[in-house]
């Protein structure tokens, strides 16, 4: 996989999902309140995980691997992936909470444009989370024989 692909595939996938929602406009499940509540939980779990991962990464011994990540400049990419995952997941939760207010205004349904934004953030945070999680597992298992 190329670095460029690795950098942008969450945004690309999220955009594709948003486009697909716009094109086919499927509807949210019927009880939108509970659905949003569930989504908020998922988003906050991810946020919590990423925040913990950041702490673990900061505490990793400054051994050869971390040294090399620093020297090669890959640490910048890793930091940017972590940032994207953290804020992606956080904004997914916040967006869900904002959804409750919109729901009051335009009851009974949230409408197409809210849904497009929701699917974009959902896919983005999911893929950004996946990217960081798989990298972290590789970093942790690095050097094992």
């Amino acid at each position: 996989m190329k670095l460029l692909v690795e950098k942008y595939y969450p945004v690309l996938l999220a955009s594709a999902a948003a486009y697909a929602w716009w094109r086919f406009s499927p509807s949210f499940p019927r009880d939108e309140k509970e659905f949003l509540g569930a989504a908020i939980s998922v988003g906050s779990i991810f946020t919590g995980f990423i925040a913990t991962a950041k702490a673990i990464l900061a505490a990793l011994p400054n051994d050869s691997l971390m040294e090399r990540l620093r020297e090669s400049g890959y640490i910048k990419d890793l930091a940017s992936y972590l940032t994207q995952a953290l804020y992606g997941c956080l904004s997914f939760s916040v967006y869900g909470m904002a959804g409750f207010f919109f729901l009051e205004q335009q009851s009974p349904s949230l409408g197409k444009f809210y849904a497009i934004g929701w699917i974009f953030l959902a896919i983005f945070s999911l893929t950004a989370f996946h990217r960081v999680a798989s990298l972290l597992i590789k970093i942790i298992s690095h050097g094992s024989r």
Partner: protein
Amino acid sequence: MPSNMKVHLYDVHTQATTPFEGALAAISATPLDQRMRSVGANEIRLENCLTPNTPANASSYWLLDFTNLRFKNGPGKANRVAPMTGFSLGPDDGFGEETAALYDPSKKVLLIQYNHHGPRASAICSYISSFFPGVMLDYELSIRLNPNAALKLQRQSILRKIDAKITPPKISSSMRKSGTSLDNALSISNSIGGNTIEITISASRSKSSKLDFQKAHEFISAIKELMSNGDAVERLEVEGRPSPGAPIETIDLIEERIETTIYNLTLGSDLRYIQSSRWEGLLKARNGWGAIL
């Protein structure tokens, strides 16, 4: 006994204000008995130095001769029909090995005779750089490499051996620049714990045997591709013959140094190549390299 010597070409770099020839002139102005300096485990001396455009040296190059002096154990005098005897040495005598050199001030290149036992380029360099106590003259010699190694490889119609040493790629900035994703970079460097991989592919011993030409070239270009990954390939040598029956040539695709062999040196009655003959050889080499300097 082959009466030939190899000559290598070095570029002289310096940040010092004293030019290289200035240092040479100053060293040769020092009396011979004070010219000796210890470099590593050896004692080295500028034995002889001819300034350019003088009656003794009509050329425009500096002719130099460095010696490695040795006062430990040494060889003996041999004879096919008589037992081995020692040389009769005085109390202060020892053995010495000579390396001739030629300095071209206009091109800033130093041509050095290759003598396995004599002072080598690195020793000569540190000898000159640290000759004056307290004054560090910062000279650097870098061997000139042949950019035409690839051309030389093309000439080989028969390939006999490929020898490669590869350092498994470590995560590096060159990887990042070439666009390898962090995910892949981690996977590559995680594969095995080894530090180097050495591969030798050689044809069987018989004279006519050879490697499959097509496949060998594919292998070489695969390794060359690795080279773009920074310092991943430490050694890549190919042995081949330009034509059947021709002598085997070894091509170092990483560090093919510029080298020439000077034949028919004159051997003195004491079985040393005479100094003037070695200098003549260096002058020949300098003239032969006129086009690439």
